[in-house]
């Protein structure tokens, strides 16, 4: 935990803090159909074209059921569209490598993965997907699913803010405006910035180049007599991946999607060429989720509430990161005993370009927000260092969280915190003047229960089934962590992998796909129901007797609620995975 780390951390949090307000103010304008932005002149005609194309009156609002129906149909059509492209990519253009069709169950898994903003990848992009599949089939969802998340967050914020209203906004308007005014313009500039750092953007076939110094590599496999084949193969050339990378990476980060163009994701030198590109990528993951907290404050007309939510997110982020950073810096004592420099920490699975600090920070950020892009292998983290990303996901992806998803998830925790503690001020609980009643509690607990069922239920199944165990490369607690991580990541719509688990099998493709669907739509529907119900309530005026939803006390309460709900739910599972593994590492002679 060196000085440079502390300086970078300060810089990261500082810049994020500075960007929160402008981003929030801009989102407020975009998410208000009457809002004026400086891009109106350029984008306004395009926006109106889409309205007339789809036959939408942008100002006609929807109630929560109509809103949900629009959202589900939009996502369903999008999923089918992507499924079709993946299945037919061999017949479609922009396939210089001549990749064949993607298998049925992998296409199912991948289409759902991108439609749900998860971007779990049971494939290696550079050896599976054509440029068209990447740019159209997948990147379309990077925009659409991000906009959908933001739309739901906006609908919920409106629900909190409105007084005796029947509607919560128009889904189509929200999505179109978000894509046109927020995601596309930022990505345009951002992609160019990334190109300036050396990221590629082309349609060339993969390049075959001569290696600088040819070397010998063992040929995998066995000879006829069953011995490890001794002959070595001389390697003189290397295939270098090409493709439209910058355009996809920009939205993969900004939209907290995380699906890498290449299998190595942000560890690949093309996908993350410089320290600056690394810093920008981490920052862009948090940019919109952070701005949305400011948006919340604006919409409910209590900016201090927005900042209290931001503070709770920032507090959990910092604590998680510091634990991860410390664990990775400390490393594995058994390795040190073998003479490996203790000062370098745990460098297994990390890019030397990024080192301990930037790997730990990236891992924390990408799992706090449901991004899932990685620049190091979480599987190789120390047990506690790996516990942090895992727990981050299990806490519900509310530490800034996915675009929109983080905010609406956190609002559910606000509702629960208000309900639990609100009674203690001697009133039936109220959130910003809205009474929290049976219906709201029901919607909120459904939201909390879905991930519990998705993560614990599926892990229990996989961990005791032949198909589940077949995918494991590790046994014992670490193998358990791998399965637990896979279902946490998919249910939490994160998409990062602990790796070490071969999940491109029929059973995993299907169960993980279902987990992603569960974690997205079975959580969004209760959210919209909550939004609709809150919108319909009468707002009570705020005063001295109102439950305070700002200030340090509330931040502590909210942080405590998130941590307690998460810890109580996942402590037993975690104790059989990373926690036992940690003690095995520190208190036993088992070397791993």
């Amino acid at each position, binding site marked *: 935990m060196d000085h440079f780390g502390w300086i970078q951390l300060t810089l990261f949090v500082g810049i994020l803090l500075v960007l929160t307000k402008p981003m929030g103010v801009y989102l407020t304008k975009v998410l208000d159909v009457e809002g004026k932005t400086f891009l109106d002149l350029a984008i306004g005609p395009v926006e109106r074209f889409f309205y007339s194309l789809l036959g939408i009156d942008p100002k006609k609002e929807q109630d929560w059921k109509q809103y949900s129906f629009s959202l589900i149909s939009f996502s369903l059509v999008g999923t089918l569209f992507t499924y079709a492209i993946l299945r037919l990519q061999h017949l479609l253009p922009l396939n210089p490598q001549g990749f064949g069709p993607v298998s049925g169950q992998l296409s199912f898994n991948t289409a759902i993965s991108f439609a749900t903003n998860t971007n779990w990848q049971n494939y290696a992009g550079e050896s599976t997907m054509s440029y068209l599949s990447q740019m159209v089939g997948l990147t379309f969802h990077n925009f659409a699913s991000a906009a959908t998340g933001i739309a739901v967050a906006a609908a919920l914020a409106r629900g909190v803010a409105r007084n005796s209203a029947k509607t919560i906004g128009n889904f189509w308007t929200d999505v179109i405006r978000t894509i046109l005014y927020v995601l596309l313009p930022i990505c345009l500039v951002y992609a160019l910035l990334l190109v300036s750092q050396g990221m590629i953007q082309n349609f060339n076939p993969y390049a075959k180049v001569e290696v600088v110094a040819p070397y010998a590599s063992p040929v995998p496999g066995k000879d006829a007599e069953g011995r490890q084949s001794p002959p070595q193969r001389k390697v003189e050339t290397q295939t270098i991946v090409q493709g439209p990378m910058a355009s996809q990476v920009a939205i993969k980060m900004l939209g907290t999607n995380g699906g890498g163009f290449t299998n190595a994701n942000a560890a690949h030198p093309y996908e993350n060429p410089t320290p600056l590109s690394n810093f920008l990528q981490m920052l862009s993951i948090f940019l919109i989720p952070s701005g949305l907290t400011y948006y919340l404050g604006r919409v409910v007309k209590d900016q201090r509430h927005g900042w209290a939510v931001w503070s709770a997110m920032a507090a959990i982020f910092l604590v998680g990161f510091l634990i991860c950073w410390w664990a990775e810096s400390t490393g594995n004592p058994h390795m040190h005993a073998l003479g490996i420099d203790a000062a370098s920490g745990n460098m297994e699975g990390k890019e030397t370009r990024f080192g301990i600090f930037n790997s730990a920070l990236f891992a924390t950020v990408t799992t706090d927000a449901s991004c899932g892009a990685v620049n190091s292998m979480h599987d190789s983290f120390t047990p506690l260092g790996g516990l942090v990303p895992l727990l981050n996901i299990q806490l519900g992806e509310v530490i800034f969280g996915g675009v929109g998803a983080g905010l609406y998830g956190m609002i559910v925790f606000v509702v*629960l915190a208000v*309900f*639990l*503690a609100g*009674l*203690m*001020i*001697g*009133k*039936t609980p109220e959130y910003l*003047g809205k009474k929290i*009643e*049976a219906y709201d*509690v029901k919607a909120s*607990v*459904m939201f*909390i*229960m879905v991930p*519990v*069922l998705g993560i*614990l*239920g599926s*892990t*229990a*199944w996989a*961990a*005791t089934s032949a198909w589940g165990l077949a995918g494991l490369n590790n046994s*014992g*607690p670490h193998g*358990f962590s791998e399965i637990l991580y896979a279902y946490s990541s998919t249910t939490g719509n994160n998409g990062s992998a602990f790796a070490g688990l071969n999940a491109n099998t029929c059973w995993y493709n299907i169960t993980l796909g279902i987990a992603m669907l569960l974690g997205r739509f079975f959580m969004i529907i209760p959210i919209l129901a909550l939004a609709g119900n809150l919108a319909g309530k009468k*707002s*009570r*005026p705020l*005063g*001295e*007797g*109102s*439950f*305070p939803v700002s*200030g340090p*006390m509330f931040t*502590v*309460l909210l942080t*405590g609620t998130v941590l*307690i709900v998460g*810890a*109580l*739910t996942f*402590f*037993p*599972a975690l*104790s*059989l995975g990373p*926690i*036992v593994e940690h*003690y*095995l590492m*520190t*208190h*036993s002679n088992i070397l791993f």
Partner: protein
Amino acid sequence: MTAKALSIFDRQILSQAVVESFKKLNPITMLKNPVMFVTEVGATITTASIIFKPETESLIFGFQIAAWLWFTVLFANFAEAMAEGRGKAQADALRKTRTQTIAHLLLKHGLAQQDVPADKLRKGDEVVVSAGDIIPADGEVIQGVASVDESAITGESAPVIRESGGDRNSVTGGTRVLSDFLIVRVTADPGNSFLDHMISLVEGAQRQKTPNEIALTILLAALTIIFLVVILSLKFFGAYSGVFFSITVLTALLVCLIPTTIGGLLSAVGIAGIDRLVQTNVLAMSGRAAEAAGDVDVLLLDKTGTITMGNRQATEFIPAHGVKIEDLADASQLASLSDETPEGRSIVILAKQYGLRARTLSEMPAATFIPFKAETRMSGVDIDGKRIRKGSSDAVMKFVVGRLPPSVEDAVARVTSSGGTPLVVAENEKAMGVIHLKDVVKGGLKDRFERFRTMGIKTIMITGDNRLTAATIAREAGVDDFLAEARPEDKLALIRKEQAAGHLVAMTGDGTNDAPALAQADVGVAMNTGTQAAKEAGNMVDLDSNPTKLIEIVEIGKQMLMTRGALTTFSIANDAAKYFAIIPAMLVATFPVIGPLNIMQLHSPQSAILSAVIFNALIIVALIPLALRGVRFRPLTAARLLRRNLLIYGLGGLVAPFVGIKLIDLFVSALQLA
């Protein structure tokens, strides 16, 4: 019924509650409470597993866990039974007033009477009640005037007058007519009277869950389901990891995690809240009303009777120029000796402050007292050749024949402009000075309103007085706002206006013309002396007919909600420590390296699990007094209240079980129970 506070552990209630806690084990009644239902199922499973499938643990351990799980259920039942028992004690007191009375039913067309038992009476029947009879049912007087002893209901021994017409025509079943007779029209069918409502509420039999209780139950049920999934999945995770978890241990962990503390005490808190209302002599028509009282943020308070004493009192003597204040006081006292009105008496008392001893009429046989007459609008005395009079300024002006001295006129003007009433005192032809009569605000109200303000509750005074007088009294009483020259319809309009702005409004009322406003208000407290219409419109009745009680009602409502919240927070915060006790104990056999996670240094895996289960059961008992008495009410701002209660019940709930489980573990290991 009297407002007697029962001691928390009354012996008779205690023994009855023990019996009841076993009766309540019936799983069908248990279903109402999902948390305790799961606990009971858990207790059954562990018991069955000892009998049918003794597992790897020792039998003694299994037996102890099963026993403590049953205790957990019994303790929760006991808490509920205690609350109901205390309610029943109140209800029995109420019921005593309802010993079978014989009613003299008036047959149609008037003349004949027929004796029928009171429970055969129906709404609309007319009965005759003579001196000495008990009024057989709630009703309204349609003929006659009588004094009625309502002590059975109110505990107030002084009889009250009930008469037909007007605002004092309502009578309550169970009260006794002392003089004269009344003809009463029955207004409630048997089983539907106030008493019946009240009895069913405090007995808890027909208690309906309040909206907030329903919401809380949903949350508790959801937590229970989550922990069920956690525990079930743990069994599978154990199978993967090669750790065997016995059913006994898993059930123990489950019961420790689900919110049994609040689950076990929730209904007790609700019943006790209603019970506290009854103890202050307020009958609530539903638990919902009691809960709404906690949410009220606007109080409409009638000036007369609630804020002021109801009568004007002398507060100051202002002598005319050249008159000594003692002489004015002396004259005022003489003029008021025979004046039995509260105003008159207050003058006598005020005069004593000027060194005058109390004089009685019998000391002064020579004096001729002049009573107040409508024509003269003065009263006074003729004594020793002095003619002393007191009255309004224009009446006295006539008496002294001529203008009042400027100093007196100034005094009159000053008193009037301050909202008071001036009485001018004259001796023969000389105006001596002015007595300042004013509405006196009840003691302690200003502080109370101040406390309400910190809690965000607005107080509005309602009065028929003019704006000037109203403003003065409002300022003096410290209310936030007032409505002057108010008619009943203005009251209703005001309530509607506040409600439209999102406020919840409470008010008191007694007259028939208050009924619409009482019905409109979120909490409408009718005075027991009020009309039947008023009582039916409101959702609470104050048997003492003390409008100031509204303040207590709000406090009790808040206290009930606070207790519920405090116990919920405490219950959930407890779980962290239980994990640290049980999880290491469950894993240490397979993974001895996990030892350091046993941060409490508990004696053995079995004693750790047993101690957590025992703590979980005992904490319910330990918190019964808190559930029944309620969290102490403090008038603080929401922010400060939250900070305080979060520290006590949140942080306390986090820490307490670490200490408790460790202590129990010391006992358990010392006694070699595990």
